[in-house]
C-alpha cells in the first residue's frame, strides 16, 4: 500500500529495535483502538438483553425506557438492577453487562450518601468512586480518551498551520518572511493561558458540550501554532539552497511541486521528532486548564478535574489522586518513550562517519 523509500524503512526498523519506545507505541495504539469501542467495555448500558425471547443491543441504539423490559418507569433502564431482577425471576431472561457496568456520569452510592468510596472488586468499582460516587475507572477511561483525541486533533491542526506558514516563509523568503516573522513574534508574546481563560469564559452556553470542546481546541491551536514555524522555516531555508532544489527549479517544476515533492519529505524528520512532545504538551495543557476549572465543561470526565478532586480529598480519599496521577504519569511516560525512540531512530548522526 505504502511505498516507503529505503531510508524511511531503515528508520522504522530502527524504531522497532528500540524496545522501550516500540512497546510503548504498541500499548498506546491498543489503548486508542480499545477506547474507540469503549462503550462496549465501560458503560452502564448492557451489551445484550434477552427479554422474552427477543435480543436487544442497547449500547449504541436509542434509549430503552424501563417499560420496554417490564419495569414500571418511563426513563432509561437501569441494566444492573435489570440483571438482578431477571436473575431473581429466573424466567429465562438475561442481561450481559460490560466489564465495568458504570457510565462516567452516574452516581452510584452504595450507602445512599454521595462520597468517595474505596476500590471494591465485588461492586466492580475497580478504582473506587469519586466525590459524588461516580466510578473513577469510567471517568479516567473516558477522560483519557477525550484528552488523547483532543491532543491528536491539536497536533494535526498545529502542524497543518505551522508547517504551511513555516514552509512558505522559508521558501519565499524576503519581505514575506520578514513581515510574517514579526507578526509571529508579536502573536507568540500574547500569554496563551490567559487568552484561553478569557476566551473560554465568554463562549455562549447555548453550544453543546462537543462544540465547546472544539472551540477550546480552536483557541488553543490559535495560540500554539507559532512555535512550529521557527523549525520549519529554518529547515526549508536549509533545503532550499541544496542542489536538488536548484535542479528542480531548473527543469521548471512549479513551487507547489517543489515544496510538496522535494522539500517537505526531506524535513519530515524534524516534524516527526516533535510530534510526541506536542502531544505531551497538549495533554498537559488540557489537564492544567481543567484543574484550574477553565477547561472542559462539567460533567465531562477529565483527568484535570479528577486531579483537582484528589487534591481536595488527599486525607480522606487518597485513591482518587492516586488513580488520576497514576494515569497521567503512565500516559505521559508512554508518549515520551515513543518520542525518545522516534528522535533516536530518525537521528541522522547514526549513519554518519563522524560518529
Amino acid at each position, binding site marked *: 500500500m505504502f511505498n516507503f523509500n529505503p531510508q524511511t524503512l531503515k528508520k522504522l526498523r530502527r524504531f522497532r529495535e528500540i524496545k522501550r519506545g516500540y512497546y510503548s507505541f504498541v500499548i498506546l495504539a491498543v489503548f486508542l483502538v480499545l477506547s474507540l469501542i469503549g462503550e462496549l467495555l465501560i458503560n452502564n448500558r448492557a451489551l445484550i438483553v434477552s427479554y422474552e425471547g427477543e435480543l436487544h443491543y442497547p449500547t449504541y441504539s*436509542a*434509549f430503552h*425506557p424501563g417499560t420496554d423490559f417490564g419495569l414500571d*418507569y*418511563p*426513563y*432509561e433502564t437501569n441494566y444492573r438492577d435489570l440483571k438482578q431482577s431477571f436473575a431473581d425471576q429466573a424466567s429465562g431472561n438475561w442481561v450481559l453487562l460490560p466489564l465495568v457496568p458504570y457510565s462516567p*456520569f*452516574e*452516581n452510584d*452510592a452504595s450507602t*445512599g*450518601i*454521595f*462520597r*468517595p468510596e474505596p476500590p471494591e472488586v465485588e461492586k466492580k468499582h475497580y478504582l473506587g468512586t469519586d*466525590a*459524588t460516587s461516580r466510578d473513577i475507572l469510567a471517568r479516567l477511561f473516558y477522560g483519557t480518551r477525550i484528552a488523547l483525541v483532543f491532543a491528536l486533533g491539536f497536533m494535526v491542526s498545529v502542524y497543518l498551520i505551522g508547517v504551511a506558514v513555516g514552509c512558505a516563509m522559508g521558501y519565499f523568503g524576503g519581505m514575506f518572511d520578514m513581515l510574517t516573522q514579526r507578526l509571529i513574534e508579536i502573536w507568540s508574546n500574547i500569554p496563551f493561558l490567559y487568552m484561553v481563560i478569557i476566551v473560554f*469564559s*465568554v463562549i455562549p*452556553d*447555548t453550544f*453543546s*458540550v462537543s462544540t465547546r470542546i472544539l472551540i477550546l481546541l480552536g483557541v488553543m491551536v490559535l495560540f500554539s501554532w507559532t512555535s512550529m514555524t521557527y523549525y520549519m522555516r529554518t529547515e526549508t531555508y536549509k533545503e532550499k539552497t541544496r542542489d536538488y532544489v536548484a535542479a528542480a527549479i531548473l527543469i521548471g517544476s512549479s513551487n507547489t511541486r517543489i515544496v510538496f515533492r522535494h522539500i517537505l519529505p526531506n524535513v519530515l524528520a524534524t516534524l516527526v521528532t516533535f510530534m510526541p512532545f506536542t502531544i505531551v504538551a497538549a495533554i498537559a495543557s488540557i489537564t492544567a486548564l481543567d484543574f484550574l*476549572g477553565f477547561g472542559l*465543561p*462539567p*460533567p465531562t470526565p477529565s483527568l484535570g478535574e479528577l486531579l483537582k478532586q484528589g*487534591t*481536595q*480529598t*488527599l*486525607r*480522606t*480519599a487518597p485513591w482518587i489522586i492516586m488513580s488520576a496521577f497514576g494515569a497521567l504519569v503512565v500516559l505521559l511516560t508512554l508518549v515520551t518513550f515513543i518520542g525518545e525512540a522516534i528522535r533516536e531512530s530518525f537521528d541522522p548522526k547514526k549513519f554518519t562517519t563522524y560518529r
Partner: protein
Amino acid sequence: MQRIENIKFYILSALVLLLVACGGESDQGAEVESSLDNTQEILDFYDANPELITFATIDDLPNDLIWEEGMDQPEIGSPDAVKGGTYYEVLDDFPPTLRTIGPDSNFSSRSWIRDNYDMTWAMPHPNTNEYYPGMAEAWAISLERKTIYVKINPAARWTDGEAITSDDMLFAFYFYLSDHVQAPFTTNYFTTEYTNITKYDDLTFSITVPKAKPDMASRVLQSGPVPQHFYKEFGEDFPERYQWRYAPHAGAYYIDPDEIDMGVNIVLHRLKDWWAKDNRYFKYRYNPDRINLSVVRDTAKRYEAFRRGDTDIFRIATADVWYDNLPDNDPDVANGYIHKTTFYNGGPKSNWGLWINASRPFLDNQEVRLGIQYAANWELVISNYFRGDMDRLKTQNDGYAKFSHPTLTARPFDINKALEHFANAGFDRRGPDGILVNAEGQRLGFTLSTHYERFADVFTILKEEAIKAGLELRIEMMDGATGFRKAQEKRHDIYFVSFAASNEMYPRMWSYFHSVNAYDQAFLEDGSINPERTVKPQTNNLQSVAIAELDPLIDEYQDSDDKARMIELSHQIQQAHHDYGSFSPGFVQPFYWTAYWRWVKWPEEFNYKYSLYPYELFVHWIDEDARQKTRDAQDSDQPFEPHIAVYDQHRE
C-alpha cells in the same frame, strides 16, 4: 530561555520605573495634603440643601417623644470571659484597599477590616431582635412625623479619640451624596431612603424617612456617622487618597496601617481604653487583645492551617469536611484538642434554588416551569449529598416569621407530574436519548448557569435526575463576576444562586417580583401583555416575574405602614409567585458548623439566635494557658474530654 530572560528584564525595568514614579507622586502628595480642607465646601453644601439638612435648637425638639434606652435586654456574652491573648484568623484574600466605601471596597475580607466590630446607633439584640444602644444613648420614634430622634452617647469616641457628634452624621449625608465617594448604591440609598436630617445640638439629631413603615427605625438606627475630621481631604481623588488609610469607627479594634504586611498579614489591636468597655452589652465581648489575620486563599489550605493549629476557629461549610475530613473519631477530636459544634440559628437565611427566567423561549410557558419544579430532585441532593442535614426550602421567603407563608411547601420530585406538565406544553414524546421533544422536534433542554463551583456536585445530581423526567439541563459553570453579570442582564435560562438575607423584618417583594423590574413597560394600558416589551437588565427580578394582577399588591405592600395588612399581602404575593412556578426552592442550612481548638472558649449557650457566623459577635475568648497545655498534651498524647455538641435551643 532567552525569551524568558528578556521578559524578566522588561518586568524589572517596568517595576523600577513604576517605583520611581510612585515615589515622586507621594512626595508631591504630602505637600498638597496639608493645604487641603473641605470645611467650606461642606458648609456650602448644607446651605444649598436646607430641605435636607436642617439646623435647629434643642428647644425645637418635640416634647411628646417617648425615649427608649434599650437597657432592658439581656446581657451579651459570658461573665467568665477573660480579656487578652491572640486570636488567629485567616482572610481568603488580601484587601485591595482599607476603604470600606467606594471602588473595590466590596471585597470578601472587608468584614475583618471593619464590619465585624463596627457600631451603629443601635443594634438588634442577637436573641430578642429588640434594639440595644450602640453609639446612641436613647432614641425616639415618631410614626406620624416619619422621624427617628437620636441622642448620642456623650462618651462615644472614634477610635482615634475624637468625640462622635451630630456633625459627623450631617457629614455622612455630604459624604455619601457626593459623587467623589463613587458608591452609586449607597448614594442612591441616601437619596431615596432619607428626606431630612435635623441637628438639635452636638449630641442630638433626627432623621426623617419618606415612608412610615413598621420597621422604619432600622433605616436610621442601623446606620452610622462618618468621621468628618478624618475626611478633611475628601475630594475628587478620594479613592486613591484614602486607599490605605484606616478610617476611625466606634468599635473595639483598630488597624495600624504602618504595621500591615502587604499581601500577607494584618493585625487588629483591641483599644485598651475603649469608651464602651464597661457597657452592659459590650463588657463581655471583644476579648482577644490581638487578632492576627493572615491570607490563605485556598479552602483546602485554610483547613490544613487550622489542623496545624495556625488558626483557632474553622467554619465548616460542607458535609464532606464535617464527616470525612474531620470525623468525630479523628484523633484530634477524640482526644479533645479540637471541639466541634452544630449551632441552630434563626432568622432568614440564604435561599438556594433555581431561578427560572420566565422571559426565555419555552420557559415563558407556565407548564414548562411547573414541569421543571417536579423534575428537580432536591430531595436526593439533600439526603444523599448533604446527608440529610439541610432542610428543603419552602418558598423564596422563608424565615421571616409571620411574613413567611404558613402553609406553602416546595413541589416534590415527581416524574409523572413533570411528564404531565411537559406534555401539556407540547413535549409529549421522548427522543432517542430519552430527552423529551415536541411535535416540531425541538428538545426540552435548558442551560443551568451558576458561579458556585463548590456546589458543582449538586448540579450533576440534578442533571442526571432531570434526564429521568426527559429534561436536559446543560451545566454552565462561570466565574463569579461573569456569571452574575449574565444573570443581571437576564441572559440566563436557569440560574442557581441565593440572595443572602439580612435580618430584616419583612421580605423584599418589589425588587424580586414587580413587573417594572422584569420588563420595560411589561403591560399595555388594558393590562394585556405588551408584545414589544424588552427585558430590563440590572435588577433583582432574575425570574422576570411579571403578573399584571400582582403589581398592585406589591405596590400596596411597599407603601403600607400596617403590619397586619402587610403580612396578609405578603402571603398573597408568595402564593401568586408559587403558582407562577419560576422559583424551584432548593435547600437551606438551618445551622452552622464550627470546629475550634480547645483554647477558644465560648459562652454556655455557645452563640446567639440571629448569628450567621460563630465569631461575628465576638463573645469567644482565647485561653493562652490552655493553648500551651494543649500543645504539651499533643506532644505527650495525653487526651482531654472530647467536646462534640449540638446547640438546638433556637431550632425552628
